[in-house]
């Protein structure tokens, strides 16, 4: 364990450099650059509000804020897991030439996505003001779902990164899984509105849904849902443990498959 921490300290600068690079290059060639992180959620929320408030008939005052709380988190989860999956393969040239602890690659992509996600929360902030959502003391709890979200993404990212080295078509499989996650995360509807009955527990299988629930509790000034909290802790840290384990086991074989 000591060796791992020593190694990490040595490559701390590299992690920072890789995160910087991802963010810098993401918008270097585009015209609006970093502004897209703000404009994109505004546009999509606008569309979603338009469609779903009419469709579901629910006239909710702060529906855009409701949508944003779900949408922003989902976007981060989707983007970070997708880029983590590709991270080993896209850095194959470097892996073959210099020794660098390989977990740095998926970690750096997930972290760079996380920073962009935090910037996009500015949109949520302004939307809350516009739709008169008053921040209560419960807002402090927002830290917990934010941390859990990062841990969950890291865990899933590591699992995907490892498997994608050996099975290239995992990328397509994961897109389908993400679609399933999106529709079951109650981004643009309320779970209570759906008449699920006995099947209501199905939603608890979606770790992202559980995190979004507590995130919304913090934003809208409600106490944490403890059962959701517990489940999301298990999911997040469990996936991280599994991810690190299989990554560590298989990392020496990466170079033979890229």
């Amino acid at each position: 364990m000591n060796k791992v921490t020593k190694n990490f300290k040595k490559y701390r600068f590299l992690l920072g450099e890789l995160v910087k690079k991802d963010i810098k290059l993401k918008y270097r060639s585009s015209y609006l650059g970093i502004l897209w992180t703000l404009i994109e959620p505004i546009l999509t929320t606008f569309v979603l509000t338009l469609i779903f408030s009419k469709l579901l008939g629910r006239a909710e005052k702060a529906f855009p804020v409701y949508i944003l709380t779900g949408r922003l988190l989902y976007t981060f989860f989707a983007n970070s897991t997708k880029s983590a999956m590709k991270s080993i393969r896209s850095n194959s040239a470097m892996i073959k030439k210099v020794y660098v602890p390989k977990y740095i690659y998926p970690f750096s992509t997930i972290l760079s996505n996380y920073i962009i996600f935090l910037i996009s929360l500015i949109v949520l902030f302004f939307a809350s003001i516009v739709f008169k959502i008053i921040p209560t003391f419960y807002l402090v709890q927002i830290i917990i779902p934010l941390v859990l979200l990062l841990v969950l993404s890291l865990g899933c990212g590591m699992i995907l990164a490892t498997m994608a080295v050996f099975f290239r078509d995992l990328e397509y499989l994961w897109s389908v899984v993400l679609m399933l996650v999106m529709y079951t995360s109650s981004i643009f509807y309320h779970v209570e509105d759906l008449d699920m009955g006995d099947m209501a527990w199905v939603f608890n299988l979606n770790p992202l849904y559980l995190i979004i629930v507590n995130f919304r509790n913090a934003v809208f000034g409600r106490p944490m849902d403890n059962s959701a909290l517990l489940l999301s802790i298990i999911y997040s840290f469990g996936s991280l443990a599994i991810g690190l384990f299989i990554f560590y086991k298989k990392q020496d074989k990466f170079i033979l498959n890229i």
Partner: protein
Amino acid sequence: MDNKVIKIEHVGMRFNLMEKKVDNLKEYFIKLMKHELRYQEFWALKDVSFSVNKGDRVGILGLNGAGKSTLLKVIAGVLKATEGKVSIKGKIVPLLELGAGFDPQYTGAENIYLYGAMLGYPKEFIKDKYDEIVEFSELEDFINVPVKNYSSGMKARLGFSIATIVEPEILILDEVLSVGDARFRKKSEAKVKGMFDDGVTVLFVSHSIDQVKRMCNKAILLEHGQLIAEGDVKDVSFIYEQKVTGLDAETLRKKKRKAKKDKEKKAKAKREKAERMLAEKEQAEKSLIENEFVEKPLADNELFEKEQANTSPINNESSEKEQIEKLPVDKELPETEVNTEERSGINSPISETTIQDLMKPAAVETNVKDADIKTPITENTESENIG
């Protein structure tokens, strides 16, 4: 003296060459079910053991496919050995391919920081060395251009300067000194040689035996993944040459001795010829100078004689004799004067005049001779000039 910085113990590296590459889930499961996942083993390295002391420059020789690059990758930590142990003491900087670690969209300056970070150096260190790196690479303003727009030579220069200026303790070079233009190659060799003096350990792979002999003090020889020779660079490279040429030791030694002798002979012949030409040139110049001194005091009758002599080049010898006889000089005097000259020297006034007379026929002689020397091949042109 435990000065070892690299210790390789019984290292082996096995690759699985799958008969048919499987890289998606469907095929994998199907083959798993059908028990068709066959692995063909290939041992790139087998039971390799050696150690390197601090400050050694070890050349790694071997034919293609011997396992040199695999060994370097195992030492650099890029590959994990299937069996055996690798112990390294010190910071390794591997230069396995110039410009491989660069991100094409990033500028050269940004890539310096990125590459330095990859090699494990902290930010402040790279900042200190930044100017030195830019200067060595000779890129100047191009440092702010994205690397994708660089020529291959520029990428090579940048990669090399970063890797050598960050003060590695162990430097691994995989045939990178043979890349780039002649000037860069000279510069990089000089730079690496300069690092030897700082006590940097170097592992060096090259196919040029001369380069290895120049740069290294030790060498190892690999063949089909096994270490077959280790020791002084001259001994190991001799064995390698045997392998390359296919001759055994005795024949190779004889051949080398012969080649060396031939080379020396050639050099000697060249030297002698040069000396000869130089001597001839000097003599020609000398006699030309003498001619110039004497040509002026020639009297009219002598000039006439000279003309006659020149118009009949074939009868040079006989005309010379005639001239000598025609000269108003007492025949006896030259004989005696020669003697007195030898005894008393040139200072007596009587001898001066007689010596002058003596010198006149000589002058004519040398004139003709001079003409011979000047144009030894073409006598025709000579007669033309005079005529």
